């Protein structure tokens, strides 16, 4: 969904100065198609969440060049959502949607292969990501010591005090200049050195330094893994590569292990329901369920939209299902998998999320075992 910016040009070699402002997807596709024959590239200028989930099932492999944990979490849930298990709780090979993921920061980077159901998925190893640095409010408000404290004071506290409801836009140079000037004022007041415009941008936008060489290394690693997965010509990375090129050169391969209770790539969160429960009741219950806490849930069963919160036309089409029993909507089977997408709370932020649910209807067929059905 991004457009090309000037600061991309030091490393994103498919873009030129005259492309600034245009959608990255479209320009990248065009440039590659100009030079490489026999390949088919279709650009989609949109957010990854804008695509229907079944869109992603069309692909053999998904390669990720994302820049946030939230985005990775989302696509990971999508890919793992296709995964089905057999009666012995083994993943069905034809439902495994491989992903290769990479990321860089300065001289550091990582590349990994995710085979849902086999290797750990993104969620299984979420603990790998340290929580983002947040300054305590009292430091910002009362005892600033560093330039970053002064900047965040201007950005997070002073802005709202003065701008009464107007949202701060990090891409608006006037907004950024205002924050910079306020940060300088505060720094002067406390005798703190070091506030520069560059630092202001870096702190407010959480700018990550990036260079062509590290990105070349990591993207090449991902491309190589994708080639090996698709051609079978060699064994693949198993399963996480970390790279650091600042102090000499260090690479390490770690074989992380899947979390068998993972909510995302595991067989699914078990939920026992009465046959009488309506779809509306289920949606309400999902908001309360401590294992899920999903609000504004949309429900999909076997690729069919049972209820969609958006867009308005789909909402209208599926609204009548809300009052019907879920059991009926699911074709009166005793147990099956449904997919739930909605909003979940994480660190005081609301993010898109997707979860697999193993629904078991109570009192049907006297079935009591917890095995998941792979389909009706």
């Amino acid at each position, binding site marked *: 969904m991004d457009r090309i910016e000037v600061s991309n040009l030091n490393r994103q070699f498919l873009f030129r100065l005259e492309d600034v402002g245009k959608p990255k997807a479209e320009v990248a596709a065009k440039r590659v198609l100009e030079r490489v024959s026999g390949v088919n590239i279709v650009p989609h200028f949109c957010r990854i969440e804008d695509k229907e989930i079944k869109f992603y099932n069309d692909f053999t492999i998904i390669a990720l060049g994302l820049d946030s944990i939230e985005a990775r979490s989302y696509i990971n849930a999508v890919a793992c959502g296709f995964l089905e298990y057999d009666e012995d709780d083994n993943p069905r090979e034809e439902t495994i949607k491989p992903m290769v993921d990479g990321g860089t920061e300065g001289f550091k980077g990582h590349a990994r292969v995710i085979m849902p159901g086999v290797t750990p998925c993104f969620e299984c190893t979420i603990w790998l990501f340290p929580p983002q640095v947040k300054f305590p409010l009292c430091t910002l408000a009362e005892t600033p010591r560093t330039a970053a404290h002064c900047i965040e004071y201007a950005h997070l506290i002073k802005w709202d005090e003065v701008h009464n409801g107007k949202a701060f836009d990090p891409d608006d140079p006037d907004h950024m200049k205002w924050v910079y000037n306020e940060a300088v004022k505060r720094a002067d007041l406390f005798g703190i050195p070091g506030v520069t415009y560059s630092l202001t941008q870096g702190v407010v936008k959480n700018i990550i330094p990036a260079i062509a*060489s590290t990105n070349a290394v990591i993207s090449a690693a991902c491309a190589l893994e994708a080639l090996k997965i698709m051609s079978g010509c060699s064994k693949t990375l198993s399963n996480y590569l970390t790279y650091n090129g600042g102090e000499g050169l260090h690479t390490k391969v770690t074989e992380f292990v899947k979390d068998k209770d993972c909510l995302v790539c595991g067989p699914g969160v078990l939920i026992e329901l009465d046959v009488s429960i309506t779809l509306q009741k289920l949606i309400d219950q999902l908001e309360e369920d401590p294992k899920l806490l999903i609000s504004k849930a949309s429900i999909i069963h076997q690729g069919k939209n049972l209820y969609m919160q958006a867009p308005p036309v789909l909402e209208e089409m599926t609204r009548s299902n809300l009052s019907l029993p879920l059991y009926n909507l699911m074709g009166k089977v005793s147990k099956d998998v449904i997919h739930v997408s909605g909003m979940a709370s994480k660190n005081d932020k609301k993010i898109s999320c997707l979860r697999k649910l193993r629904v078991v209807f109570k009192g049907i067929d006297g079935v009591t075992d917890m095995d998941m059905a792979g389909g009706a």
Partner: protein
Amino acid sequence: MTMAEPKTKYDRQLRIWGDQGQAALEKASICLLNCGPTGSETLKNLVLGGIGSITVIDGSKVELGDLGNNFMVDDSSIGQSKAKCVCAFLQELNDAVKAKFIEEFPETLIASNPSFFSQFTLVVATQDLDSGRTIGSAKMSSGLYLLQVNTSKRQAHNALMEDSMIKLDRICREANVMLVFARSYGLTGLVRISVKEHTVIESKPDHFLEDLRLNNPWPELRRFADSIDLNVTDPIAHKHTPYVVILVKMAEEWTKNHSGSLPSTREEKKEFKDLLKAKMIAMDEDNYKEAIEASFKVFGSKGISSELQQIINDSCAEVDSNSSDFWVMVAALKEFISNEGGGEAPLEGTIPDMTSSTELYVNLQTIYQAKAEADFLVIEKHVRNILKKIGRNPDSIKKSTVKSFCKNARKIKICRYRLIEDEYNNPFLPQLQKYLTDEDYSIAMGFYILLRAVDRFAANYNSFPGQFDGGMDEDISRLKTTAVGLLSDLGCNGSTLTEDLINEMCRFGAAELHAVAAFIGGIASQEVIKLITKQFVPMSATYIFNGIDHKSQLLTL
């Protein structure tokens, strides 16, 4: 086409190496030998970053097979000079870079015009294997899909063979031009730096203990700590006393009660931490929690690291009129450490953020900055005196350079690399044997041997093993013989490489995969950047890439 505003275009990299690093890149001139995929990818990253100038040397023409692995040539390039086409593409990426090409085979230039290379800051030397190929896939009898190279019956040429490499290495060494070798071969590859000596002041390590001197405070710091009462009654003030002050005071009290020594045994260290805990008057006193966590900084030994000790003991620290500025400053550092420094290097001067009132924190910062400045002035005097002694202008080293040296004194690094000839003719046998037998290194070492063996193979048989259809079995056995011969020449008698690895090397058929070339090119370009900016630390050994399981290794050879 107007140029992009450099400060904006380079913003994301300026945050790493700053204006000085960028200036060094923009002054540099790079010569690339052979612009196959590996060389092209290396140069691409440098051009994007704003390197001063590039000169591409390659005698070959673009062929159909090149379209399968070199992004810098396209349909319209076929039949034209590869150097010309690659240059044209690179120029598009950054019009601030001066791009030239010479349609000539590197071996010819190396043999006939060695002085040609003296004009460059750095040479990147890569292989370029016969490009009359297309890469397809075929099912082999074992049932595995393999990448097979279909080749024409052309000879293997353009490989930068052993002799040329050795000659080039000597030429560059003599002309004081830096050299980086980069090579891709199937799922393996290699990057090797060759420079006599590369010194780094701004090594910028990720993690390095701050220079707090909690176990050896100087008078001003002591006086400041004395002026603060830890037992202040106001609870706000109590929890905003910075941990540096807490630890300096507590350490002093301890030494008074323990005949001048700091905690050294496990029990003593625990006791010290307990004393800190006992001073907390509330659970939320972050400054005391920080003090407890940082208490290990009090227990550490005084003085300089063994690595720095080695540097000041190096024979190059005995300076004369030919010594570099770096070594003159090291000589000054050595004098400082044994005199005014009292065994310590100059104070770095910054302190990390810590829970504190603004006033105390800023005061503390000022004290550290003042001491750093004072140490710098002493070292500067030493530098000027040494310059005079060795017959140089005492002002010939800039103040800012000396300042940067002082700030980074504890982190300076030296990288020295053997000549290729030396590596080939005088191998460190025990090291080689260790690599060949160690589980973690044997595959990387095997690839290193085989990369040299395939060159010998090509010299004998005019093609690389597995390069042509048919004859795979014969190639495997010939490669094995060649590799065993090489091992024996190196003195590693009795060591063998696994059949698997030899088969694998033949399977590669000297193919240059774009993804592997891009990876190797990424690594090579990163090393070039570190060498030119003189920031961060270049790899100190030969990098052997393993694209099978990514367990690549650095081999000190």
